[in-house]
């Protein structure tokens, strides 16, 4: 087990290392470079001055040297300075990470609960009309563009009904818990709905398969009530693959969070990455993307470990 975890950790580190180079190179291919922005604000700069500045900032060096330089700084905890926020990158990153975690965790829990209930109910009578209805809903959840769902939520609940605020995390001058909650409802529900579809299908499929197994027939034959058979005997076994799928869906969840944050103006990681790419804030974009990758890799690692722990048949 220890060997397995160690090997997986090393693999994740390798992926992170490769990705850091790929993202570094890609960020370098985005329009403009840090000097262009400086030159724009100083029209009098002569080509000689520009060349000297280039040398000072190391922009005349080949890509791999610049990368190694950046990597060395990053490993010592120096991720550079955010141009748009005029703050060290880490100080922008950490509050944003907190906002995203809150959004993602609440919607994740919500969609897991919803998916379990719907998936189990659907699996009780596969092919029945309740199953058909739930499957239709699940397909709708998979197929809806998240940003458009957010848009429609805004249209209905903010513009038409005036029930909920369309953006931000709190009203100015009002920081009460109720106010914060009201601002969170639409982002959380949007993100949760977008994820529930896929989860429901997995729970349903896994439950149907488990309910056909021999040990379920034995449990029924021994006189257990149907409720106990489903909730205790079947659910426990059905959950093993589901847990993995859910933990592995973290990358998708993050992509969804990026959209919900952008649509509802939540100051989280997703919106921060999007804004930083739009505004050529290279340091922030680079660190944000790497952070998102890191968090995804860690959650996948947990998924692997949880899988081995839940299913004793799998020898690691």
């Amino acid at each position, binding site marked *: 087990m220890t060997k397995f975890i160690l090997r997986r950790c090393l693999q994740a580190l390798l992926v992170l290392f*490769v990705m850091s180079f790929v993202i570094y190179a890609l960020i370098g291919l985005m329009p403009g470079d840090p000097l262009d922005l400086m030159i724009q604000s100083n029209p009098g700069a002569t080509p000689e001055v520009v060349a000297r500045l280039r040398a000072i900032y190391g922009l005349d060096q080949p890509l791999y040297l610049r990368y190694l330089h950046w990597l060395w700084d990053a490993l010592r905890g120096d991720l550079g300075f955010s141009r748009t926020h005029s703050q060290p990158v880490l100080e922008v990153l950490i509050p944003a990470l907190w906002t995203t975690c809150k959004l993602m965790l609440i919607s994740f829990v919500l969609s897991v609960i919803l998916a379990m209930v719907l998936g189990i109910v659907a699996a009780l009578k596969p092919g029945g009309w309740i199953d058909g209805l739930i499957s239709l809903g699940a*397909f709708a959840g998979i*197929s809806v563009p998240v940003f*458009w769902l957010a848009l429609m939520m805004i*249209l209905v609940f903010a*513009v038409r009904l005036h029930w909920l605020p369309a953006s931000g995390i709190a009203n100015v001058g009002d920081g009460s818990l109720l106010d914060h909650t009201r601002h969170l409802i639409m982002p959380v529900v949007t993100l949760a709905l977008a994820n529930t579809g896929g989860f429901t299908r997995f729970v349903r499929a896994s439950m149907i398969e488990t309910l056909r197994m021999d040990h379920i027939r034995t449990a029924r034959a021994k006189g257990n009530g149907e409720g106990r058979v489903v909730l205790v005997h079947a659910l426990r076994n059905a959950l093993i693959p589901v847990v993995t799928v859910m933990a592995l869906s973290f990358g998708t969840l993050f992509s969804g969070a*990026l959209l919900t944050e952008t649509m509802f103006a939540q100051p989280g990681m997703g919106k921060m990455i999007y804004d930083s790419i739009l505004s050529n804030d290279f340091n922030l974009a680079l660190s944000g993307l790497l952070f998102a*990758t890191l968090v995804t890799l860690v959650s996948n690692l947990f998924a692997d470990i949880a899988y081995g722990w839940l299913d004793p048949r799998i020898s690691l």
Partner: protein
Amino acid sequence: MRPDAAIGVWTLRWRRFRRHRTGMASLFILLALIAFVLAAYPLESLLHIDPDTTDLFARFDPPGPGHYLGMDEAGRDVLIRLMVGGQISLLVGLLATVIGGVIGTIIGVIAGYFGGRLDGVLMRFTDGMIALPLLPLLIVLGAVDLTKLGFSADFAHSGAAGFWRIVIIISIVDWTSIARLVRAATMQIRERDYVRAARAAGAGAPYMMATHILPNIATPVIVSFTLTVGRVILFESVLSFLGFGVVPPTPSWGNMLNNAQELVTTAPMLAVYPGLLIFVTVIAVNFLGDGLQHAFDPRSEK
């Protein structure tokens, strides 16, 4: 046909598919959608409108004769833009799926057929790709300045470049599920007796893959391709919506929602139509995939 005559596998599958209600319904919806987007050509010549002509005096005009769904924020005909935009969105969906599918199939079949260390390396690479948060990665890829890759400025800002860029970035990111599927299927086929016999008879790897492996794994791959089309259309819409995909004036269902956030308050229907079309297309594609899976599975014969 004589009642005792053997029927072909595709006839059987078509029979099973026909009984799959949601699958059949999706097929008709998709055919209707294709007819809808192609109707742009007759409509353009019939009403003498085109999707790019702006008329600032006609901004947000309500539906009326000649402009059945009204005008958008730049005074362009909404209906014709929905049709032309649909052509672009569907084309991106198909092209990126085919290119990504070919990449995934090649990687999967090589990994599955040869196995061993090559398989290990390719699958670790695939796992690494699966682990990444795709949307941020696609945004960065969409933001890449083509002139820095050596393309001319004219090309980099043309509509064609915007179109091909999104096709290519989606296909180089979204090939992983097909690769894994193809690998697993290949490994199963590889051990069948007739395949081993062919190998023992001296057949080379390319011949084996072309005649024995690929035809036999076609059905799960077709299902997976179908589901990928839906995902790609969603990716296209998101990227174009965020401004990193198909660039205006070329319309796509995604970039027609570029100003959607303001439109929701001023002209809500403009924000509803494109999204609704994306939603209907993707849900139909997904149900079609479900129907195909049912039809291809011999166990669902009941």
